[in-house]
């Protein structure tokens, strides 16, 4: 449904090329390896894959360029074809590139390209080389479809597609049962989220009768008077119910409480996959979805509060787990969960721009961290335990430096990207509040600060344990250390640069003004999407604002939604607080781990024994889920099958019926002993029975000469089964004689 400010553009090429690349490698990859030889084959395979993503990247850039340079147009659209339609349901395969999806596409294709390149080095020796690149390409295509979808259904296509690719890539080394199980777990948890997504779609559909984002936005434009708010399903306003369901989908995809446990397990996949899928792109799809539907979410303040709470709790929760983990990838995984929590905290507070900003920055530094860890793991012969590392900075200078930059970024050290993005989120958390959830903002802020402290601590703990001090692994590994290769270092450098300087895209207003008018480029770019005020027609917003008694309140504070006018001093104080917290975390980590695990660290662990155990045991969430959900489901299935299917229906029902029939049959068979006379007696009794029935039934026995036409006409017989239209018997039949009289007569004869 092209809007006035949208123009058509061939967007399909963006996801098409990775898709074709995936197809090529799936179908011909093995063949190439066999025909062209291993070396050349691999070259061809990854050339195709990388070229596909590069093309896609190129098309994205050109599309964004077009978008920037055609004034008065917010978005590019393309309607590929009508996909699913029936009745009034019309689902087109429509693509939409607006400012939000432009950002996402850039991240996906850009970071994706770098990770593809990195994979060439990382997967060098893998026998399933083509399959790997095919999956990676397929993932890129799906992710692009996800962010380019112009309707919820198309987004769902990508949503599921990335889920499948994630499943395939986590279980890439499928011969290891535990890795395959991790993939399965990820897919099933995502599927639980998909249930929410589907229900959300249905609820939106019944309200709008369309799933186009544009149509939903239009329907929302009534503000609190839109049907989303005024009408309810199951007693809950549609907006609230639909967004809650959609958020369930987001928790699945973005690994939030309660569906986060799959993400740490997902580290079973190859490390570049973890970087691309489980850090930079796929897991942020939930954040993207909420931002994409921000006009709907603001109509549901309850959901917004839930999102903010879940985000804040997840951020802290995961961060506390990450503090004690010893697997380099597990630390990063929990860190990712924690950072995603930040993003949800932001969207829960209505800070859409901040959320996306953090999403992008996170994509840079977390991808860099993961790729760096990948390089380390490769170097340490696939040992991932940081207790057995140390001093690697000496052997891997590039990796250690880029890792350090990313650590500084994620910790929120000033001037690095994370500083800007995280700070913006904390600021919003502090300032934004709806009347619905008074005080929630302060709680969220404190959670965020604590998580920030933990983040700084565990990231530098990781850094020091890995790169500083003495090497603690075995001698052999140290000696045969795999050196750095340019194809793996190059992406690291690029990402580190982005992590270091990307934050300048979003310089806070107060700082920007101080320095001399550096704008918040990112906010300005996203304004058409995130500035929700223009989405609502005037009356709707006016109602909400002018009704002071309303406990219904837009999820975003009116004043903030426009340009974030917070007093400069407040903003500066907040910055100082978060910087202090970050530095404190780094300092503590340095104190304890600069030369490997110190005695002090062990002492602390002992002193806070309970806390340490809980954190180290990851709160036993997996065990709890296993015992509370997985086993009961299996047990119920077993009981259903054993008791219901086998016992009740089959044994009692089917076998019972057949057994009864068999028993009766046997009894009756005893009568059929071939004795003709006995048959005849039964026949006789039957005849008596029938005639007695005739005799006893006045209706039938009335058919006598008085009623029967002597000229018996068989053609006049009419079936008497159904009720007749006009009852053929006009008069009541004559009263039957009492049976005693003929009996006496018969006896007399």
């Amino acid at each position, binding site marked *: 449904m092209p809007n006035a400010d949208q123009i058509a553009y061939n967007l399909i090429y963006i996801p098409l090329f990775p898709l074709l690349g995936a197809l090529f490698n*799936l179908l011909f990859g093995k063949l190439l390896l066999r025909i062209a030889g291993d070396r050349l084959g691999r070259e061809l395979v990854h050339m195709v894959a990388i070229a596909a993503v590069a093309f896609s990247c190129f098309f994205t850039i050109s599309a964004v360029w077009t978008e920037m340079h055609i004034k008065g147009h917010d978005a590019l659209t393309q309607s590929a074809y*009508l*996909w*699913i*339609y*029936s*009745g*009034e*349901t019309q*689902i087109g395969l429509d693509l939409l590139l607006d400012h939000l999806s432009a950002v996402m596409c850039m991240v996906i294709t850009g970071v994706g390209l770098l990770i593809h390149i990195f994979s060439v080095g990382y997967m060098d020796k893998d026998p399933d080389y083509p399959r790997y690149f095919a999956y990676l390409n397929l993932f890129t295509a799906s992710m692009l479809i996800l962010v380019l979808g112009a309707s919820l*259904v198309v987004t769902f296509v990508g949503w*599921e597609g990335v889920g499948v690719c994630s499943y395939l890539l986590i*279980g890439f080394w*499928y*011969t*290891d049962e535990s890795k*395959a199980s991790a993939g*399965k777990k990820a897919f*099933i948890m995502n*599927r*639980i989220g*998909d*249930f929410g997504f*589907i229900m959300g779609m*249905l*609820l939106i559909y*019944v*309200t*709008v*009768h369309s799933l186009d984002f544009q*149509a939903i936005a*239009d*329907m929302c*434009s009534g503000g*609190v*008077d839109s049907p989303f708010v*005024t*009408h*309810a399903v*199951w*007693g809950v*306003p*549609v907006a609230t119910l639909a967004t809650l369901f959609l958020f369930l989908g987001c928790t699945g995809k973005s690994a939030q409480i309660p569906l986060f446990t799959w993400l740490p397990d997902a580290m079973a996949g190859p490390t570049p996959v973890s970087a691309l899928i489980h850090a930079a792109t796929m897991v942020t799809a939930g954040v993207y979805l909420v931002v994409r539907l921000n006009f709907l979410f603001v109509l549901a303040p309850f959901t917004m509060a839930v999102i903010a709470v879940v985000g804040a709790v997840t951020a802290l929760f995961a961060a506390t787990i990450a503090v004690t983990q010893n697997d380099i990838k597990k630390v990063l995984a929990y860190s990712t969960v924690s950072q995603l929590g930040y993003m949800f905290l932001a969207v829960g507070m209505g800070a859409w721009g901040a959320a996306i900003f953090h999403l992008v920055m996170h994509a840079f530094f977390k991808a860099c961290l993961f790729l760096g860890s990948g390089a380390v793991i490769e170097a340490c012969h696939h040992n991932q335990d940081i207790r057995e590392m140390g001093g690697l900075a000496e052997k891997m200078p590039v990796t250690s430096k880029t890792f350090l930059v990313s650590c500084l970024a994620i910790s929120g050290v000033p001037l690095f990207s994370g500083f800007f993005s995280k700070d913006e989120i904390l600021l919003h958390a502090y300032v934004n509040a709806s009347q619905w959830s008074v005080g929630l903002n302060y709680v969220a802020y404190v959670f965020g600060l604590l998580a920030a402290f933990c983040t700084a601590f565990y990231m530098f703990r990781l850094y020091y344990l890995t790169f500083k001090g003495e090497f603690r692994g075995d001698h052999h590994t140290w000696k045969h250390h795999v050196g750095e290769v340019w194809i793996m270092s190059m992406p690291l450098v690029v990402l580190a640069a982005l992590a270091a300087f990307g934050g300048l895209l979003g310089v806070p207003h107060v700082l920007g003004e101080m320095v001399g008018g550096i704008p918040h480029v990112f906010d300005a770019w996203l304004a058409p999407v995130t500035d929700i005020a223009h989405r609502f027609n005037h009356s709707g917003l006016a*109602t909400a604002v002018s009704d002071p008694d*309303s*406990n219904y309140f837009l999820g975003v504070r009116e004043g903030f939604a426009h340009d974030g006018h917070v007093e400069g001093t407040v903003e500066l104080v907040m910055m100082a607080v978060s910087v202090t917290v970050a530095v404190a975390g780094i300092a503590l980590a340095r104190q304890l781990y600069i030369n490997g695990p110190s005695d002090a660290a062990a002492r602390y662990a002992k002193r806070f024994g309970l806390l340490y155990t809980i954190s180290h045991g990851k709160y036993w969430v997996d065990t709890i889920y296993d015992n509370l959900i997985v086993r009961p489901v299996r047990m119920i*299935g*077993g009981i*259903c099958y054993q008791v*219901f*299917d086998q016992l009740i*229906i089959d044994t009692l029902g*089917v076998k019972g019926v*057949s057994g009864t029939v068999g028993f009766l049959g046997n009894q009756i068979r005893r009568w059929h002993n071939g004795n003709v006379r006995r048959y005849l007696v039964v026949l006789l009794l039957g005849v008596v029975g029938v005639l007695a029935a005739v005799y006893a039934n006045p209706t039938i026995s009335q058919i006598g000469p008085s009623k029967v036409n002597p000229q018996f006409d068989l053609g006049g017989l009419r*079936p008497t*089964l*159904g*009720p*007749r*239209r006009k009852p053929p018997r006009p008069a009541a039949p004559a009263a039957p004689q009492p049976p005693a009289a003929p009996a006496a007569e018969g006896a007399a004869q």
Partner: protein
Amino acid sequence: MSDVLTILLVLPIVGAVIVSTLPQRETNLAKGVGLGISVLQFLVSLSLLSGFELGTPGMQFETNVPWISELGINYHVGVDGFSLFIILLTTLLTPLCILGGWKSIDKRGPEFTAALLVLEVGMIGALISLDLILFFTFWELMLVPMYLIIGVWGSEQRVAAAVKFFIYTMLGSALMLAAIIYLAVAHYNATGGVWTFDLAALQQVVLTPREQTFCFWAFIASFAIKVPLFPVHTWLPDAHTQAPTPGSVILAGVLLKLGTYGMLRFAFPLFPLAAGEGTLILGILAVIGIIYGALVAYVQSDAKRLVAFSSVSHMGFIVLGICSVSVQGFTGATFQSLGHGLTTGALFLAIGVLYERRHTRQLSEFGGLAKVMPWFTAMFMIAMLGSAGLPGMVGFVGEFLILVGAFAHGGLTTPYIRELVLVGAVGVILGAVYLLHLFQKLMFGPITNPKNEHLKDLSLRERIVFAPLIVLIIGMGVYPQPFLSRINPTSNAAVAEFNLKRCASIMHAGSWADHAVMMSEIDGCEDPERLIAAVYGDERPFPWIEVPTETPEASPTAETQPPAPQPAADRPQQGAR
């Protein structure tokens, strides 16, 4: 051109006769002849597709010849959107079955091929019959070859399974026959002495509520067993497990669909009043089936049995779509029938491939097959993902339409359907659970069983069998338009007709008449939906929203919205139904 259907019926019979004259030893020759005939049959059936007129809801390729004219029984056949693709699915699956079972069927080949061809006649006949007696004839004709296929070429406990299958299905059809005759007699009485079993003519009879209830459930008894709905499903796992691969494929691919097809074609349109009151029960059973089938599938140790239970789960979705009596629901149900036929057919073929190699179907016997059988794994995965309803594959389109139809439009016919959808959608989760469980047990992990180390990947023959299925699974998911555009008009007409007759039934019931009348004698159904809503309540959420709003200004909703200055506190409650 209109004789295509007759050709479709005659061709397999000719084939069966030719094949059955071959000596018993000539197994391969028989299969070859059967393959040729069935491929020819498929090609002939393609002319249905090319000759099918788009945008017309009614019957096409109609032939109507008197058969037993004293009772008004005609050879009346035709095709519309509901039946077209299931016929094509039948003609497609039959050659694939012969090819797929090339190796596993090694005894009595001529008989087997003949049985398969006769089965094809039965299925196609049932799908194209527009005369109830003709339908019933073909409906019963299907039983015999299937019974033989399970009973003769099945696995260890084949006889018990075959008998169970036979008894279950016979039980249902006996009731259906009674209802058919009852309906014809009612027509006879209502018209004052015209015998007919023609569907279109009987469609004009409006029975009293009690009669409708009796007839509806008699029909449903037959169809529900075939589908199979929840409490009468236990024949299915046994039949599937014991049947040879081609039998399972046909059983899952087409035979089950005839149950839902029967509901769409006969039970619902003929007795809409009873249907309107029975959909709640049907819907509950369907949803129980969705959840139950999935849960039970999860704990199976036999791969084939697992897939069989997954059929119970999937067919529940289809029934739910039919219960919604909406355009989307009907279209979705028909489309999902195709999707389920393709995906489950492919899964059964795949398990057949394994069984051919290892002669076991126990999950514990396998593991790590992805290493030795990569192509097989790929095929299996696509079929599995299609079955799980992944967008871009065939399963999603149908499932989505069913859910949308039921959730948004089902409230007029089925009360509480949104709650049912909510529970049914949980099946989406469970579907992934058991399918991934199956996939992992078979394909992933290390190769623990040394017997699996040298399993051969798909042969050329097997690839040829899988190829069309895989292409369709993906193609129909990506571009379902050719299918939807042919199904939709029929769904539209069917829903309108259903509502019209339901309205007429309500009027008729309101007159306290104690006998059936013809539709033409009832008037006052200009706006059936309004009347139905007035009588039964309209549980569709927001029925007032008619079209998607183009622009806020032009939106019809703006006018129908309640005035703004309501006390804001009770707005949510006010919106509650």
